[in-house]
């Protein structure tokens, strides 16, 4: 049994002030158990409860290059940007409401003051609340290492529960969210046991409207599979169609068939199947209305 009163392991601790310093450290210690510390709200818990062994811990909170949010045809969010910083931004609230709703649904203010967006992504929890909205907005990740950088879609980043494609000498330095389509309506929805909780299910949807037609859409669910899941077949039902209630109902039904939830300590697979349908239906309605669409 663990003891969460204290950290029992010994490790070396670095606080680099530049990104290149951090990348040097990652490169040097790539063969060791090296971890990036951003908010620590997941990492420290895992170190205490799962006994994740760490030999080298690199705190990136003093690197000024990754502490900013750039507002230029979309958002570029640095790896050390705190969730509470984002939820206070007008641009986040107005342009990316699903992201705003996802962030504010998370934990308590004290946690959001510490936790980072990139941390939530790299933690790669199937229940990560910011991941479905970011996938809806087509977010990309800037991944850097001493050898160079690459930009990949967030959708391709997470490979399983707690697993990503990040190499040992790499870190995610930035989340790049493109400018949304002018008539995009998006929304986030989450159900937990209580208000501040890990999701039984979370989901985000985005609908691009062209008149009465859904030009394109994304339906992304969390906590229903080993990683965030896109309901492609459900999206297919809506894409290019005139949006009506019955269409939304069948898309929601289809989405509930696409998910593969399990029984766990938070809920049951049976309940999640039913809940997903209701949540997708309701959230599609909200998104369509936010896109300026009429309710049929």
């Amino acid at each position, binding site marked *: *049994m663990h003891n969460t009163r*204290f950290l029992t392991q010994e490790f070396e601790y670095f606080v680099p002030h530049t990104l290149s310093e951090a990348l040097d450290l990652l490169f040097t210690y790539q063969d060791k158990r090296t971890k990036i510390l951003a908010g620590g709200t997941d990492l420290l818990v895992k170190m205490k409860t799962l006994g994740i062994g760490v030999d080298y811990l690199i705190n990136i909170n003093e690197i000024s290059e990754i502490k900013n949010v750039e507002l230029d045809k979309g958002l570029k969010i640095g790896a050390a940007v705190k969730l509470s910083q984002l939820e206070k931004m007008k641009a986040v609230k107005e342009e990316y409401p699903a992201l705003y709703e996802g962030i504010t649904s998370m934990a308590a203010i004290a946690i959001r003051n510490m936790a980072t967006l990139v941390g939530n992504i790299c933690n790669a929890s199937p229940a990560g609340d910011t991941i479905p909205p970011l996938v809806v907005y087509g977010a990309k990740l800037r991944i850097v290492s001493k050898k160079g950088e690459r930009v990949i879609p967030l959708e391709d980043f997470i490979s399983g529960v707690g697993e990503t494609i990040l190499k040992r000498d790499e870190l995610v330095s930035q989340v790049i969210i493109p400018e949304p389509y002018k008539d995009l309506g998006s929304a986030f929805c989450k*159900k937990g046991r209580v208000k501040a909780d890990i999701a039984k299910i979370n989901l985000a949807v985005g609908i691009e409207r062209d008149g009465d037609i859904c030009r394109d859409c994304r339906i992304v669910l969390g906590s229903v599979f080993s990683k965030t899941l896109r309901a492609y077949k459900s999206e297919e039902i809506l894409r290019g169609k005139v949006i009506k209630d019955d269409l939304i109902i069948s898309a929601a039904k289809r989405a509930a068939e696409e998910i593969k939830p399990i029984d766990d300590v938070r809920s049951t697979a049976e309940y999640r199947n039913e809940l997903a349908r209701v949540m997708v239906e309701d959230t599609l309605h909200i998104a369509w209305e936010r896109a300026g669409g009429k309710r049929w």
Partner: protein
Amino acid sequence: MEKEQYDFIGQPLEIKNIGKVTGKELYSSDINIPGQLYAVILRSPHAHAEIKKVDYSEAVKVGAVCIGPQDVPEIIYNERIVSIPEKTYRDRTVLPKEKVRHKGEALVACAAETEEKAWAALQKIKIEWGKQWKPLLTLEKALSDDAPPIYDWVYLGEEKLKVKNNIACERNIEVGDVEEGFREADIVIEKTFHTQRVYHMQFETKSAVCVPEADGGITVWTTSQGIHNVRILLGNIFNLPLSKINIKRITLGGSFGSSIQMNSITPICVALALKAKKPVKLVSSREDDFYDHAKYPLKTILKVGVKKDGTFTAAHCRVWVEIGGHNIQAYPYLGCVAGWFASLYKWKNIKYEGTAVYTNKVPTCAMQGYGNPQINFAVESMIDILAEELKMDPINLRLKNYVGKGDEFWGQGPTVRSIIRSCGVEEMLLEGAKLAQWEKRVPHYQKKEVIRKGMGVARGFHTSGTGGPNPGEVIDYSGATIKINEDGSVDVLTALMDLGGGTWDALAKIVAEVLKVPFEKIGIYNGIDTRSTVFDVNTHATRGVYCGGGAVKFVAEKVKEILLNYAATLFKDLPENLVLSCNKELGQAIIYPREIPENYKTIGEIAEYAHTTSWGTLAYTSTLRQKNCPPCFITHFVEVEVNTRTGEVKIPRVVIMGDSGTIINPNLWEGQIIGAFSRGLGFGLLEETDYHPEDGSLRCKGLVTDYKIPTTLEMPKIEDIIVRSAHTYEPTGPFGAKGIGEAALSSVGPAIANAIYNAIGIRFYELPITPEKILKSLQEKEENLRKRRGE
């Protein structure tokens, strides 16, 4: 009604003891002694296994002081000594000697210069296990004939008893003839109910600091609801004279009943300190705490007979409780459940059969209500079931049958009986119905909306203390030393604990009222220990104000007598001609001869004179046993909104009526009621400590990440929580007061269940009523309807 004009009683409290707000309050875990070692505990990875050998030699080599089963005294004890010895079951030692009986049971402890070092040493301990058994996690499994025995024998008092079928104890009670009663009935209904295990989730995890003193004695700071019992137990276990043990009274960060017994870590800390010959500090982690205590669950089969006019004729109540790996207080628990059941309604004929069963789970203990919320869920659900069958308003059925003024009440099981002298049940049901707009309630079959509203009522009560005209199986007395200081301020020395509900404030007010000394001049909050106080049994059974308050009032009145007698010599008058009153401008109590207020002296002046003339201290010490334990009543009217698409339940509004007689601190009283509603919400809708069926571990792993209690956001908005008090006066209570704490929780669960029934027409027999269960039941109901329509 004997209502008087009070100076302090019933006034909203100005916060005087602000340490909790400013962070300066000290708890056990804040105590640091120079040179202290820090302790950690190795807990069993198995739920039921034989201990062959514990080898901590490697841990000692890295500098740790260790204790294992071989190092602790042989004495078999029960950690709760509130009941009389001959009714106390004993089954445990400080650390288990032969086998572990639940996963997470403390097995070995290490102390070192830091917690981290102690933890590192702990990893070096080797344990050789013998036979292992598959954990027994349910009543059925534990009771089955092929179940391995968790205990071969235990003690009841001094008697050694063989344990059969893992039955820890039983209690059967019969009053009248139930079979005859059922024959008289027009309707007989039997239902089975379940309430679950929940975790106390008190803020402060159990902690202890023990200092071995030069004289061979010990000083201990520890989380406790009753410091004198800790002293007596430690003396017994470690064979120390009680004069060499001093337990400090220190603020508790909540307990909800989990520190009525001496906590399991306390003697472990003492054993380590005695071995190390150094101070030792032991602070439980949250997961230590999760594996240490939980609320008693209950399975109830309740059968009730009723006549067409709503008169009850008989009730047969069978209960089972699986208690986990130790029997802390299952015998009195079964007695109390019988009492709560018997004292809710006039059943006329009663049969009660209670069985407590050992399992390989975390030991259970009292938690806010001690069986009351559990049995209340069964009874108050049943009342609504019967009312529907009788086509009677549920309020009327309750009014027709409740146990009230002049009736006999079992305050602490069948051995503590008394007559009810104050009762607000009728007022609370009728006034509460008005406030809740009960008349607008519509039956469930008229509701078709997606979000269906419902309203439910349930009523309950709890005892105030455990005293009766004759002492029963439970020890109950309290006491104090009260002295008037040389400046006219007052010190109150009582061992009674404040669990966070403001009991010390209430006691200070009672003393202020008797001695007419301004409330802020009463010192009660710190500097207390067992050595400086007379006995108090425990702050449990909602007894703080009624018993502890009764005792300080008794002692304060003695001090008043001494004061007036002494003042009479100064005034050259008779004590009965003197008036003691509070002069708020002076901020002092004053004494003057009747009719001549201008000739007053402050009691500061009087006390100072007693001091400078070497007359002595105006002080008195005594104990008092309350000879009653009046029920404090509660009634909950709960509104719910059930989302039929998601199964979620919201509580938009609640009306709570309380009957505590005179209310000492109205704002704290209301706080108790609202706080208990939040806990009841968790009990009713959310909380349960689930176990892994294979290895007997907690599915939440002892972490709050996966054990949720309601947040403030699950509560109704503060303006939609309507709390009102009945207009009653308890003649046996201090200034007419009774308790509130545990009563406030007793009927939350069934009120919610009854409201859900009123919303969607589905009766839930098992708590918690989660969205998962609601949605499933709604789907089944829909399916059945379709089948009936032949679709």
